[in-house]
C-alpha cells in the first residue's frame, strides 16, 4: 500500500490531538445532517418530545459505537478504515411502514433482524466475488455519489418559494464556495478543516438571512445542558410480514457499505487495484453489529456514510484515530442535549452544500474504479445499461408505479436498481467467457499486432487491469520475436493465456531451442557486439517484466511461462 500524495494523515498515522478532534468534529457535523431520520419515525410512534430527545441521544451513542467498530485495528470486525455510519434511507422507508403496523417495538426488532442479515451476508461475500467485479463496485460508488449529490440539491432548494430560493442558493453557494475554495487554494488547517469552516460560515450566513427560526433557537434553549437519555420507549417485536422490506434494506445497506469501503480503500492506496474483501467483509459485519445495536438501543438502521468517506478523501485525513474521535464525540454529545440540538437545526442550504462537496469526491472515485479495468462489449453493456436503468428511477419514477408490489423494493432507489441490474447482467454475460484462450502463431507469418490484439481482446473480456495486459502484451511479442530470431522453432508456436482475478498466466510453447532468460543484464558493449547478447537482453527484459517466469525444455519442446500478479 502506497500513500497517495493528497493524503496528509494516512490510515495508520497518529495526527496531533488537535487535528484529530477538529477532524472528528468536522465529520460529526456532516453526519449530524442525517440525525433527522430517527426523528421522522418517533412522531409516528406517538412518542413525547422528551422521548424523542432520548431517541436522538441514544442514536448518537449508536453512531459513536458504529464509528469505533469500523476502525478497530485488529480482529475480523470493521473495515479498519475511516468510514463512520449514519442513518440510512434504506432502513427509514421500511421503518416508517413498520411503525404504523407494529409501533416502535416492531421497528426496533426488525432493525436488529436487518443487522443479523447483514452479518450473514458479510460471511458469504468472498465466494461471491467473481459476481461482483471491480467495475460493478465502481458503478455502485458512482450511483452513491449521484444519490448523495441529488440529496444535496434537494436540501438546497427543498421547501423554498420563489422568493426564498435565491436566498437558499446564495447561502449554499457561499458555504460550498468556502469549502471548495479552502480545499483548493489553501494549505494547513484551512484545507484540513475546510468542511467544518464552510459549515460554520453557512450557519452564520443562514442566521443573518433569517433561515434559523425562533423555534430552532427555542429548541436549543429548552434542551438541558446535560442529561442521561431515558430508555422508557424500548421494546422489541418481530413480524413475518416485515421480513421482505427489511431484507431488501439489509441487502441495499450491504451494497452501500461495500461501495463505501471500496472507495475508502482506493482513497488510502495509490497502488489500489481491486477491492480488498477482508476489509469489505469486516465493514459489512461491523455495520450489521451497528444495526443490532441500533435496534437494541431504540433507533433506526444505519449504513456507512458516503459523505464522510468523501470528506476524508478531500481533506487528506484518513487516520483511524479520527474514527475513534468521531465515536467519542458522539457518545459525549449523547449526554449533552443542548449541543446535539444545535446540530439538528442545520439549515437546508448548509446541508446541501456539505453533501454536494463530498458527493463530488465520491462520484469521481467511482468513475476511476470503473475505468481501472478494460471493458469489452459485455462489460460495457453491464455498466452502461445498469447506469441508465438506475437513473430511470430518479428521472422517470412514474414508469415503475404499476409494478407488482413484490418488485417495488428493487426499484426503490437508483442505487438498488442499478446494482441489481449490474449483478444480473454480469451473471448472464459471464456465460461463454472462457478463462483460458489459445492462439497459434506460424513463425513465417508472425504478425505482432495480431498477437497484441488477441491479448487485449481477452483482457477486455476478462475485465483485466490495463497495465497488466500491456506488460503481458510486450512479453508475448518480444518473446515470440526472439524465439523466431534465435531458437529455430519448427512448426507453430502456441500461446495460452489463463486468467483469474488474481493472476494472468501466459505460456508460449514451441518445438525448438529454449529461450535464454538471464537474470543479469548483458553490458552495452556486449549488446552492440553480437545479436546473441541482444537476445540475452530480450530474455533479461522478459524476466524483469513478469512477476515470475519459468522455462522448461522436454523432448525438444520448449515452454515459457510468464506469470503476472493481478
Amino acid at each position: 500500500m502506497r500513500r497517495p500524495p493528497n493524503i496528509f494523515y494516512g490510515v495508520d498515522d497518529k495526527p496531533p490531538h488537535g487535528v484529530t478532534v477538529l477532524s472528528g468534529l468536522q465529520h460529526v457535523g456532516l453526519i449530524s445532517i442525517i440525525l433527522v431520520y430517527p426523528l421522522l419515525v418517533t412522531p409516528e410512534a406517538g412518542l413525547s418530545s422528551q422521548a424523542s430527545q432520548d431517541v436522538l441521544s441514544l442514536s448518537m451513542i449508536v453512531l459513536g459505537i458504529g464509528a469505533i467498530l469500523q476502525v478497530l485495528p485488529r480482529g475480523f470486525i470493521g473495515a479498519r478504515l475511516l468510514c463512520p455510519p449514519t442513518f440510512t434511507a434504506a432502513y427509514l422507508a421500511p421503518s416508517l411502514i413498520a411503525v404504523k403496523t407494529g409501533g416502535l417495538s416492531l421497528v426496533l426488532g426488525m432493525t436488529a433482524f436487518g443487522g443479523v442479515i447483514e452479518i450473514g451476508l458479510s460471511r458469504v461475500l468472498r465466494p461471491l466475488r467473481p459476481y461482483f467485479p471491480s467495475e460493478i463496485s465502481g458503478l455502485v460508488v458512482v450511483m452513491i455519489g449521484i444519490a448523495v449529490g441529488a440529496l444535496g440539491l434537494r436540501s438546497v432548494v427543498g421547501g423554498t418559494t420563489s422568493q426564498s430560493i435565491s436566498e437558499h442558493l446564495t447561502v449554499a453557494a457561499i458555504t460550498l464556495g468556502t469549502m471548495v475554495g479552502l480545499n483548493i487554494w489553501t494549505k494547513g488547517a484551512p484545507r484540513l478543516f475546510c468542511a467544518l469552516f464552510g459549515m460554520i460560515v453557512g450557519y452564520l450566513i443562514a442566521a443573518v438571512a433569517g433561515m434559523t427560526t425562533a423555534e430552532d433557537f427555542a429548541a436549543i434553549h429548552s434542551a438541558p445542558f446535560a442529561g442521561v437519555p431515558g430508555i422508557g420507549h424500548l421494546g422489541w417485536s418481530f413480524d413475518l410480514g416485515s421480513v421482505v422490506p427489511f431484507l431488501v434494506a439489509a441487502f441495499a445497506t450491504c451494497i452501500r457499505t461495500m461501495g463505501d469501503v471500496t472507495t475508502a480503500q482506493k482513497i488510502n492506496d495509490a497502488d489500489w487495484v481491486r477491492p480488498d474483501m477482508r476489509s469489505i467483509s469486516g465493514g459489512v459485519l461491523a455495520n450489521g453489529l451497528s444495526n443490532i445495536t441500533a435496534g437494541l438501543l431504540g433507533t433506526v438502521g444505519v449504513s456507512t456514510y458516503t459523505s464522510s468517506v468523501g470528506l476524508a478523501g478531500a481533506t487528506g485525513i484518513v487516520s483511524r484515530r479520527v474514527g475513534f474521535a468521531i465515536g467519542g464525540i458522539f457518545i459525549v454529545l449523547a449526554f449533552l442535549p443542548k449541543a446535539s440540538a444545535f446540530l439538528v437545526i442545520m439549515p437546508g442550504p448548509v446541508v446541501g452544500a456539505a453533501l454536494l462537496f463530498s458527493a463530488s469526491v465520491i462520484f469521481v472515485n467511482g468513475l476511476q474504479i470503473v475505468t481501472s479495468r478494460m471493458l469489452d462489449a459485455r462489460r460495457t453493456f453491464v455498466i452502461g445499461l445498469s447506469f441508465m436503468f438506475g437513473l430511470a428511477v430518479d428521472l422517470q419514477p412514474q414508469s415503475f408505479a404499476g409494478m407488482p408490489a413484490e418488485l417495488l423494493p428493487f426499484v426503490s432507489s437508483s442505487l438498488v436498481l442499478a446494482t441489481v441490474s449490474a449483478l444480473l447482467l454480469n451473471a448472464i454475460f459471464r456465460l461463454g467467457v472462457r478463462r483460458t484462450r489459445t492462439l497459434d502463431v506460424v513463425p513465417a507469418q508472425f504478425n505482432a499486432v495480431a498477437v497484441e490484439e488477441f491479448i487485449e481482446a481477452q483482457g477486455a473480456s476478462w475485465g483485466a487491469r490495463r497495465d497488466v495486459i500491456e506488460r503481458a502484451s510486450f512479453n508475448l511479442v518480444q518473446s515470440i520475436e526472439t524465439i523466431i530470431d534465435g531458437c529455430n522453432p519448427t512448426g507453430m508456436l502456441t500461446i495460452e493465456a489463463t486468467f483469474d482475478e488474481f493472476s494472468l498466466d501466459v505460456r508460449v510453447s514451441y518445438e525448438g531451442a529454449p529461450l535464454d532468460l538471464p537474470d543479469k543484464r548483458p553490458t552495452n558493449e556486449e549488446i552492440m557486439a553480437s545479436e546473441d547478447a541482444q537476445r540475452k537482453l530480450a530474455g533479461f527484459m522478459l524476466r524483469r517484466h513478469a512477476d515470475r517466469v519459468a522455462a522448461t525444455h522436454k523432448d525438444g519442446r520448449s515452454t515459457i511461462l510468464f506469470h503476472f500478479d493481478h
Partner: protein
Amino acid sequence: MELREEIAGEVAILDVKGRIDSTTASTLGDRLSAALAMRDRRLVLDLRQLEYISSAGFRVLLLAARRADESASRLVLCGLSSKVQQLFDLGGFLDFFQIASSRDDAISAAK
C-alpha cells in the same frame, strides 16, 4: 515503421512512427548511420509516435549512440510515452541515452 526527417537549423530531427522490432530495426539503423556518418552532426530522435521497441531496437539505438560519440556528434531522444519510457527503464537504458522531455528541449540540448 515510418521515418520522417526535418531540419531545424543545424539540428536534424528524425520522427519515428510505429514499431521498432527485429524486422524494422535495420531500416532505422541504416538511417541513423547515414545521419551520423559525418562529423559534428546534431540529431534529435523524436519517439512521440513510437508504439513498441524490442531489444533489436535498443541495439540499434546503442550502435547509433556509439557512432555519435565516435563522430563527435550529438544524439538526443525525446517524446517517450510512459509505456516506452517503461521499456527503456526495463532494459536499463534511461541513464545511458540523453533524453529530453520535449522536442524543443531536445533541439536545445543537441545544439
